[in-house]
């Protein structure tokens, strides 16, 4: 069955450093991969979508890579700030999927 794994442990980093979050998937070949941010008590917020033919995508301080050979996406936040502290969710999906399946998320804390 399809399986999505994100960093199993919470991630703590120092302000100003680059945070790198991992999303690994097995038993399927997604055409798209989405990343969301979720703050406590709030719904997830869409951040980025990357397609299988795109190796990398950037948005401001965010960068996502998508390696279909390794079956992995990396999510980077450069020059991290305490306001970046949140849980980050990945959601790989095939084309024409009728639902998104989300990973369980990685809790990121950026320490001042």
């Amino acid at each position, binding site marked *: 069955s399809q399986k999505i794994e994100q960093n199993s442990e919470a991630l703590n980093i120092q302000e100003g450093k680059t945070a790198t979050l991992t999303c690994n998937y097995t038993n399927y070949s997604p*055409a798209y991969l989405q990343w969301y941010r979720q703050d406590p*008590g709030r*719904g*997830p917020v*869409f951040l980025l*979508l990357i397609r299988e033919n795109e190796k990398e995508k950037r948005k401001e301080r965010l960068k996502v890579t998508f390696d279909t050979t390794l079956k992995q996406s990396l999510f980077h936040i450069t020059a991290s700030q305490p306001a970046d502290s949140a849980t980050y969710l990945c959601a790989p999906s*095939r*084309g024409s999927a009728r*639902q998104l*399946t989300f990973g369980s998320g990685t809790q990121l804390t950026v320490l001042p």
Partner: protein
Amino acid sequence: GAGVSQSPSNKVTEKGKDVELRCDPISGHTALYWYRQRLGQGLEFLIYFQGNSAPDKSGLPSDRFSAERTGESVSTLTIQRTQQEDSAVYLCASSVSGDPSNQPQHFGDGTRLSIL
């Protein structure tokens, strides 16, 4: 409204009671989703509505759960004879028409349901 609106934001009820949760999607969004999120866990897909097509109910955990949507507007999720394991945050999301795998989903802040 500007975003997805869910009500109530919190609901506490006794085991065995029925509850109804409401979702107002973003105007013009034809796709609507319900998810369940248990404490400290990921999102669990429940049901998907797309326009006038038959809904995808494959994620509903039991026949105590049902959902309806009126046209391309409001949706309600009903849980009958609630059980303690139903305690969770129920999240609603909407997206524009098309393939949901490549459309960003816009989430509400959820209804936190507590079954005593």
